[in-house]
């Protein structure tokens, strides 16, 4: 019945020529994508999703080798001449990379980047290009597009960068869009908007989408066909309904089971599946009292050159994190979450207000005092790629904090610790010699987590620590955090856009909107009975990992939006 698919990957294997010799990372991957079809690729972190996606357009590093066949629209891409390949890249096939932070050239403004993307496959005039750029930014729900055009990547939040990336990929209205985790840095409301956009493009242009994601809710929401990967192989490939109803593989079942809050009611998990640990009880374990973090009237502004008014990223925020408490920080992309997290560790100066961390005011602290505080704090950065030193093996990266804070200096012990830490985040202990660029996105993120827990901190800021993790790994990481909390009584400011994760781990939730706290309170209360309008919208936008129900909800929402 189905005609020849638009993209047809058969028996694709990829191997890398590394120091230990050639290592094969994917094995005989088959992937077929029909016209106007949305194929979701899910699977374990490190199972070869990104590698497969990048092999289509030959974007792997020079030491990679592809065997098998990749046919796009009847054309063999493995054998395509460079000129032809260039026309297809960005023109017929758009690509969204997993890590938007490093994918943008730091010296080009958003406007320049978009202009380049637009002009790569069209011959518009200057004004047309500008108009198109503004239009694209609007499509990906970036506020104030005209002003965004003049910004540089380092002036954008994670989610904003990701949306710029998406805008670039769809600039030429490709026939196939390969989107590698396109919404990891987006809050659910924006995510919903982006998914709407993709579906709209599909309907309007017949665009096919390969959507790599670990969010089963998203899969349920938009996918027609689902491909499950594990250990570099495709283990299952099914239409979405069938997959959710009767997963054929043990791994798929595990995957679905691990989805937090997969319940029968709505997006927010029910209380009975909540964590079994009682954080408050732990927090009381005779540890020092008083808040670990107390922000009062904290304000952060970014200068924008000489004439334009500064951007107020965080406006006069009061926030407390009590000892032994995990506070979830949620909010729209660009609302100032990361900035707030950086403020909490003294990485970002406040314009006004005080930042009290365990009794030290970071705003006025000396270098030595700051270091003293940092001995017991740590951070998981939002972007795992750029926060790891590219020149040193990950084994060093994870144990460096131990050395630097003087906890452990013996090499042999550190080596052991490195392996141990990697294993705790479900990475092979033998990978200590690997370098960041040899890892998958999720693997890098886990290295970041391993590093953050290495020193057994008393206070941690975790900025989207699980955004790139598949649900099963995510579950174990969350468990790990809770375990640490239980045993050591640590406190955490947990930034996430994934409400289910927040629900699962946080004692309290703070909702940030445009740099202001709009609501805060116990997790249950806020997420179940949101009082602020924004929170309500947020909660409503969470996709449920059930294709039928999610589609019904989507239809309802779109109807509402139109009607």
């Amino acid at each position, binding site marked *: 019945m189905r005609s020849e698919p638009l993209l047809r990957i058969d028996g694709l294997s990829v191997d*890398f*020529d*590394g*120091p*230990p010799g050639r290592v094969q990372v994917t094995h005989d991957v088959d992937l077929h994508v029909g016209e106007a079809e949305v194929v979701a690729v899910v699977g374990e972190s490190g199972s070869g999703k990104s590698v497969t996606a990048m092999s289509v357009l030959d974007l792997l*590093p*020079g*030491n990679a080798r592809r065997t098998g066949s990749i046919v796009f629209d009847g054309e063999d891409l493995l054998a395509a001449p460079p000129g032809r390949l260039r026309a297809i890249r960005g023109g017929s096939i758009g690509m969204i990379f997993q890590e938007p*932070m490093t994918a943008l050239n730091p010296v080009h403004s958003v406007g320049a980047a978009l202009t380049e993307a637009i002009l790569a496959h069209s011959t518009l005039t200057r004004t047309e290009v500008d108009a198109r750029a503004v239009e694209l930014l609007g499509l990906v729900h970036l506020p104030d597009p005209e002003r965004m055009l003049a910004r540089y990547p*380092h002036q954008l939040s994670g989610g904003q960068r990701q949306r710029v990336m998406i805008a670039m990929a769809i600039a030429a209205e490709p026939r196939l869009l390969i989107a590698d985790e396109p919404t990891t840095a987006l809050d659910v409301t924006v995510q919903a908007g982006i998914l709407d956009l993709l579906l709209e493009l599909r309907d309007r242009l017949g665009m096919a989408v390969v959507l790599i994601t670990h969010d089963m809710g998203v899969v349920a929401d938009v996918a027609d066909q689902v491909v499950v990967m594990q250990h570099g192989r495709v283990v299952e490939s099914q239409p979405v309904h069938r997959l959710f109803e009767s997963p054929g593989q043990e791994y798929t079942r595990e995957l679905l089971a691990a989805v937090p809050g997969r319940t029968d009611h709505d997006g927010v998990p029910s209380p009975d599946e909540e964590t079994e640990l009682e954080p408050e009880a732990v927090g009381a374990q005779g540890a020092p009292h008083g808040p670990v973090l107390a922000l009062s009237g904290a304000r952060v502004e970014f200068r924008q050159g000489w004439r334009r008014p500064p951007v107020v990223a965080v406006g006069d925020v009061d926030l407390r994190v009590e000892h032994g408490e995990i506070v979830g920080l949620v909010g729209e992309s660009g609302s100032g979450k990361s900035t707030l997290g950086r403020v909490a*560790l003294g*990485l970002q100066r406040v314009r006004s207000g005080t930042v009290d961390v365990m009794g030290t005011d970071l705003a006025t602290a000396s270098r030595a005092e700051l*270091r003293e505080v*940092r*001995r017991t*704090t*740590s*951070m998981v*950065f939002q*972007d795992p790629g*750029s*926060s*790891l*030193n*590219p*020149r*040193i*093996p990950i*084994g060093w990266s994870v144990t*460096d*904090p131990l050395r*630097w*804070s003087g906890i452990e200096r013996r090499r042999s012990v550190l*080596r052991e610790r490195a392996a141990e830490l990697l294993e705790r985040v479900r990475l092979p202990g033998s990978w*200590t*010699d690997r*370098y960041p*660029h*040899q890892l998958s996105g999720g693997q890098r993120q886990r290295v970041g987590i391993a*590093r953050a827990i290495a*020193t057994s901190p008393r206070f941690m800021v975790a900025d989207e620590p699980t955004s790139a993790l598949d649900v099963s790994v995510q579950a174990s990481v969350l468990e790990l955090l809770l375990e640490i909390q239980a045993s050591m009584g640590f406190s955490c400011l947990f930034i996430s856009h994934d409400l289910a994760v927040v629900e699962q781990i946080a004692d309290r939730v703070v909702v940030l909107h445009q740099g202001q706290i709009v609501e805060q309170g116990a997790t249950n209360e806020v997420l179940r009975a949101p009082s602020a309008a924004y929170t309500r919208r947020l909660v409503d936008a969470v996709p449920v990992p059930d294709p039928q129900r999610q589609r019904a909800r989507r239809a309802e929402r779109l109807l509402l939006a139109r009607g």
Partner: protein
Amino acid sequence: MTTTTQRKAARIDPLGLAATVVVLLLVIAAVLAPWIAPYDPLSQDIPNRLQPLGADGHLLGTDEFGRDTLSRILHGARAELLVAVGATAIAMTGGVLVGLCGGYLGRWAEALTMRGTEVVLAFPPVVLALLFVTIHGASSWTLVVIMGILFAPAFARLSYGQTLSVRSAEYVEAARTFCAPTPVILLRVILPNISGPILAQFPVTLANAILLESGLSYLGLGIPAPQPSWGSMVAAGQRFMQSDPWLLIVSSAAVVVTVLCFGLMGAALRDLLDPRRRHR
């Protein structure tokens, strides 16, 4: 981590390896010069001056005083390694440290380093060298010091500029978050990430140092006269470039090979430091 070094060795660029071997040979030759040189580098034989290659017993010919060129090249290697390589190494170490501090610490450190280097740079090098040497008298050590001072600013500027663009990188911030002491951030975190251009500057500076030494020797302000140095041999050879080119060719070749090998070594080292390039 145990096998890392073996792997590195296995993947090192063969040219880089060859260059390293040559440099090692050079060092050995310099150290052993008194024993392996066929003649006394100072003994004159004016009737047999400016002999071509291979002329009776002089493998590389003789110079304008009939001194054996091979012996002078070998002995000159000592001066060159001490003065040129030494000064370049000093300049690199000092300059990079200054540049790192200036770029990373900002404010007063920045002002201090940048203004400091400006003062040195604002003087034409020849004049600075001339003044310094005339005041202090010519000797190898004077040269090492003056060239160290002269060449350090280039490294400082370079690493300063590079540090500026790296210092706000997230991995640097991460290091700060994890309590890395400032020296560690500078040397272990930032330095490896800016090493490329610095290593590229090394052979360039080395060549400049040899040439400056040559120029100064020519002006009599270099390594004191009868002592052999490649720079002064090149300068001398140039005078007889047309009638008797061998002295020039041989001494220039020594300089070229040295610069080339240090350059290749630097390139290999740079690739070693950059895992991405190593893994292909």
